[in-house]
């Protein structure tokens, strides 16, 4: 399972949790992806929106960690 860590230290307009996910998720080849995040800067609503938009379902969601699994086709 691939892990995407978006607990970035210094954020910028171009390097922040949301932008990293927007850039990374469309290219995920693996069936499952683990996302490590900081709850201060990323909400559950956003994770759900990201999963929906990029063809995933949320398999696990706990404090600071989410696991997305690719939605079955058809």
């Amino acid at each position, binding site marked *: 399972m691939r892990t995407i860590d978006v607990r970035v230290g210094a*954020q*910028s*307009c171009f390097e*922040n*949790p*949301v*932008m990293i996910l*927007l850039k990374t998720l469309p290219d995920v080849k693996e069936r499952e992806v683990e996302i490590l995040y900081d709850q*201060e*800067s*990323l*909400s559950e*609503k*956003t994770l759900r*929106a*990201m999963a929906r938009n990029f063809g995933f379902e949320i398999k696990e969601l706990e404090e600071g960690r989410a696991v997305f699994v690719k939605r079955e086709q058809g």
Partner: protein
Amino acid sequence: MVREDFPLLAETGLVYLDNAATTQKPRQVIDAIKEYYERYNANVHRGIYPLARKSTEIYEEAHTRSERFISADPGEVVFVRNTTEGINLVSYILEAVAEEGMNVVVSLSEHHSNLLPWRRLCRKTGMELRIADVRVDGTLDEKKLVSLIDENTLIVAFQHASNVTGYISDVRRVVKVAHQYEALTFLDGAQSVPHIPVDVKRLGIDFMAFSGHKMLGPMGIGVLYGRKEVFEELPPFLEGGDMIKEVRWRDGIEVVYNTLPWKYEAGTPDVASAYGLMAAMDYLDKYGRERIMEHEVRLAKKTMKGLEELGVKVIGGEKRGGVVAFTHPRAFDIALLLGEKNVCVRAGYHCAQPLHDRLGGLPSVRASFYIYNTPEEVDIFISELEDII
């Protein structure tokens, strides 16, 4: 109805509140660019044939139109790609007169584009970069800015309107002190010229830059104003093409540069965008920038009231144009979720990261308004925001 002139807004129903970043284009501007390529396309200042003469006429008219838009004299408007390029251009040509022991004065509230070119110039020439602190609310502090000016100041570079706090600076107060010390002044007009009437002669500034795309015009064209007496004394920036009058072979290469404004316009310019920019200026003048600003201020005040009711503290004070921003640890997250609801706002540091550091380091969410925004859109923004935060 203004909104119907904007195909992207009319067709999508987007609540577009990111106008400090760029503005949508009315049909009149889109049609002008298309018309240029369909009917007038030829290189300028070269061809003898009628089509080339027409294209040249259009390009020169665009300069005259832009001069009129900011009350500049003939020859004082140079077309550049954008505000950033205009500021950089001046910072490079000032190398010719910059010396160790001199200084450049800026404010901490500046956009990176009005900070980094001056930092580069100072590092290159050994001048001192003096940075004036902001007020507690993040707005430019004219008193602190002018206190840094002295007889060794080469130039004072500052914003007319902030892209974060919306604050509109007291330009004449700064210019008065700068000129007492015979310092030059550069005004970043990116967030002001599209929204309020600007008369460069009344303000007394030496340089100013603004971008076409922030005022309904095309991306890729901007204006650099330079007071003629100052521009004439300074060397060219880029060389070749239209900025040349003569290049002769004598004992070596001898060059005679072109007159203003062409001296600062090297190579083939973006004539179609210049034509589009004229259409944007005509569109704005039809409504009048005073009315546009009044409209934006009304929307900003409504937004501030709505945010206050949500317990959100806005950056900046009461004196502002149509920009409203608030810091939040989940700024990026909020912007994404608003985007899901067709509400377009900017999140981050808005190319003013030092200012955000000064305010605590958090990113901010920014709503910025323009001619086509409505009170109903403010209601949608506040209502969607309430659901998110």
